[in-house]
C-alpha cells in the first residue's frame, strides 16, 4: 500500500477564501472528509473527474471546501442531481455527501431508487442521529428514547437501520464505519469508490453540539469513545454470542455483490437499438436497390 504523505488533504482543499469552515469544534464531519480525501489520494482519481454532490445540512457543506467539481443542492435531493450527472456523463466519479435527515427523511425516496437502479454513485451518509444544522431536531436515525429539540420527552419513533434499508433496496455495496475508525473508514471509502454500482456508506459521526447537548454528551471525546465501544467489526460480530450481539452496531463491508449497473445497462440498450436501426437502414437500402435493379431490368426487357 502507498504510504500516505502527511497533510495530503491540503492538496485537495480549496485555498481561496473558504476557511475557517463552518463545523463546530469536535464535530465528526471534518474527520470523515479527511478519510475520504486520503482514499481519493490512494486510488489516484484525478480531481477533474470527481463530482461531489451534497444536500443541505452541516454535512452538506463539505463540497465547498474541496477542489473537485462541486454541487451543493437542495435538502434531500443530492442523489437526484447526482443521477442526472452520472447518467449524462458515466465517465465521471460521482460522490454524494448526505446527512441522516437529508438521506433518510426528506431524501429517502431518492436513496432507495438509486439503490434499486444500482446507479454507480458513491453515497456517503454522515449519520449523527440528529438534524445538526438546524439545531438538534429529531431525525429518522435518532434512537428511540433519545432526546432532541423536537423530542423533548425522548423520541417515540424507532430509528432506521440505513444499511439494511440500502441493502434491501438493491445497492450492490453497503458498508458502515465511524468517525473514530479512521483507517477503516478510508479503506471502506476506497472500496466504495472502486465499486461499479450503487455504493452506500453509513458513517457514524459525533455531533457534540446539537445531539450532545440534548443527550448529556457534550464532549466529542466521550462520543468517539462511544463509537469505539458500541460498534464491532463484522468479523468479530459473527463470533459474538447472541446476547453480546444485542446492543452492538456492526461495522465494515456488509454487502459487496455484483449486479448490473444502471448506466451500463442503458449503454447496452443504446447499442442494441442502434444496431437494429442500422440493420433496418441496410435492409431498406437493399430493398431500394433491388427495386431499382428490377426496374432497370424491366426497362431493358421493354426495349427488347
Amino acid at each position, binding site marked *: 500500500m502507498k504510504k500516505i504523505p502527511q497533510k495530503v488533504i491540503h492538496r485537495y482543499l480549496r485555498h481561496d477564501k*473558504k476557511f475557517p469552515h463552518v463545523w463546530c469544534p469536535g464535530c465528526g464531519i471534518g474527520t470523515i472528509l479527511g478519510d475520504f480525501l486520503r482514499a481519493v489520494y490512494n486510488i489516484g482519481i484525478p480531481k477533474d473527474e470527481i463530482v461531489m454532490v451534497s444536500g443541505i445540512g452541516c454535512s452538506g457543506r463539505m463540497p*465547498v471546501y474541496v477542489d473537485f467539481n462541486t*454541487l451543493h443542492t437542495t435538502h434531500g*435531493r443530492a442523489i437526484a442531481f447526482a443521477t442526472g450527472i452520472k447518467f*449524462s456523463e458515466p465517465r*465521471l466519479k460521482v460522490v454524494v455527501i448526505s446527512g441522516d435527515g437529508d438521506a433518510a427523511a426528506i431524501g429517502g425516496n431518492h436513496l432507495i431508487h438509486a439503490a434499486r437502479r444500482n446507479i454507480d454513485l458513491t453515497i456517503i451518509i454522515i449519520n449523527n442521529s440528529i438534524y445538526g444544522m438546524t439545531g438538534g431536531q429529531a431525525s429518522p436515525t435518532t434512537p428511540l428514547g433519545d432526546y432532541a429539540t423536537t423530542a423533548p420527552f425522548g423520541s417515540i419513533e424507532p430509528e432506521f437501520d440505513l444499511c439494511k434499508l440500502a441493502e434491501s433496496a438493491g445497492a450492490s455495496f453497503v458498508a458502515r464505519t465511524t468517525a473514530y475508525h479512521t483507517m477503516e473508514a478510508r479503506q471502506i471509502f476506497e472500496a466504495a469508490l472502486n465499486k461499479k454500482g450503487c455504493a452506500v456508506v453509513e458513517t457514524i459521526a459525533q455531533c457534540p453540539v446539537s445531539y450532545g447537548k440534548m443527550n448529556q454528551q457534550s464532549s466529542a471525546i466521550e462520543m468517539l469513545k462511544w463509537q469505539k465501544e458500541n460498534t464491532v467489526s463484522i468479523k468479530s460480530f459473527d463470533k459474538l454470542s447472541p446476547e453480546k450481539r444485542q446492543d452492538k452496531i456492526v461495522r465494515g463491508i456488509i454487502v459487496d455483490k455484483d449486479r448490473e449497473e444502471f448506466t451500463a445497462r442503458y449503454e447496452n440498450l443504446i447499442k442494441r437499438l442502434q444496431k437494429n*436501426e442500422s440493420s433496418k437502414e441496410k435492409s431498406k437500402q437493399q430493398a431500394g436497390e433491388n427495386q431499382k435493379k428490377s426496374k432497370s431490368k424491366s426497362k431493358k426487357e421493354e426495349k427488347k
Partner: protein
Amino acid sequence: MSTDRYNMDRNKPILLQGNEAVALGALDAGLGFFGGYPITPSSEIAEILSNEMPKRGRKFIQMEDELASMASIIGASLVGKKAMTATSGPGFSLMQENIGFGMMTEVPCVVVNVQRGGPSTGLPTSPAQGDMMQARWGTHGDHPSITLYPDSVLECYELAIRAFNLAEKYRTPVFLLLDELIGHMREAVKLPPKDELKIINRVNPNVPPEWYKHFKNNPKYISPLASYGQGYRFHVTGLTHDEKGFPTNKQTEIQAKMDKLLKKITDNLDDLIQVEAFHMDDAEVAIFAAGVVARSAKEAVLRSRKKGKKVGLIRPLTIWPFPDKEVERMLESTKATIIAEMNQGQLINEVLRVTKYQKHAKYIELQRYDGSLITPEDILEKINEVL
C-alpha cells in the same frame, strides 16, 4: 412510433399532436437528457422521448418523482447536456424548489407544463389556464421568469426550440406552458427543414481554469458556463454566492447577484418578448388572450370583421416577462379590451397594470374555469356588449 415517423419528408405536412411536436422540437434543439415523471396531460412527451432518445444515443430516465426530475435535469445540464422535463400542475408544484435552484445557479434547462384544472388534482383531463402565476412566482424569493405559450401544434415545435435557445442564451430555466387542448390537439403541420433551424448553444469559457469565474459579472449579466469534467472544477450552490460561486453574506455581493439575475432578463426584453397582433391596426375593441383561448378569439375576430366590427386580438407568445410596452402601445387607442382567460383572473391584472393610465378605455373580463374552453360565441357575446 418509430424513428422513421420522425425522419419524415419535411416538404410534406404530417399529422402531429401538440405534445408530440414539443418532443420533436426538443429533439431538434439538441435535447441530450430527459428526466420526467408521468402525469396527464403531459405523459405523451415522456413516452415519445423514451422511444426516441436511446435510439439516438441520448439519455432518457423516468425519475421517482418530480422533485427528482427537476434535480436530474439540472445535474445533466451541468455536464453540458441540453435537458428537459415535462409535467402538469401538480408536478410543476413539486418542482418549484429545484426550479428556484436552477434560477439561482443559472443552469439552462426547459420545463414543460401542460396545464390541467386545479388546484390540487383538479381536472386531470380538462383544459385550464390556472398556472400563469405559478409560472411567474411559483418558487420562493425574487426571480424573473421566461415563459412561452404556443397556440398551435406548429408553434409547440417552434417554441420548444426557442425555449432551449433562450435557456442556453440566458443561462436559466425556461418554461413552456401548454394548454391541455393544445397538448392533445392534432394538426397537420409542415415542419421547417432542419438546416433552417436556428439553434443556440451556451457559451463555454475561453479562459484558463484559474481565471474562470462562472458567475462573472459583466455588462450583459450573462457569464460563460463550463461543464463539470472539463477541468474547471467550479462550485455550484443554491446559497447566495459571489462570482466564483462561493457562498457570501456581503451586502455588495448579494445585491450584485440579485441584480444579475434580474437584469439579464430585463435588459433583453426585445429579444425575449413575442406578441402577435391580429387585426389590431384599426381595432376599436381588442381581445387579449393566450394559448388555446386565442384560437377562439381569432374566430371571434374574423366573424366580427365580417359584420364590419373593428375587433382585433393581442396574443402574447411570451407571457413572462409580460409584454408591458407592447400591450400598452397596442391598447393606446382602443375603446375596450376583453381579457379572456380560463382561470379566475390572472393575466388580467397584468393588462390592468400596464394600462393604468389609459383611463378612457373599458376593460372587460371573460373568465371560464368550469373545465371547458372559452368559445368564439362566449367572446362574441362580450363584443356585442361594447360594439
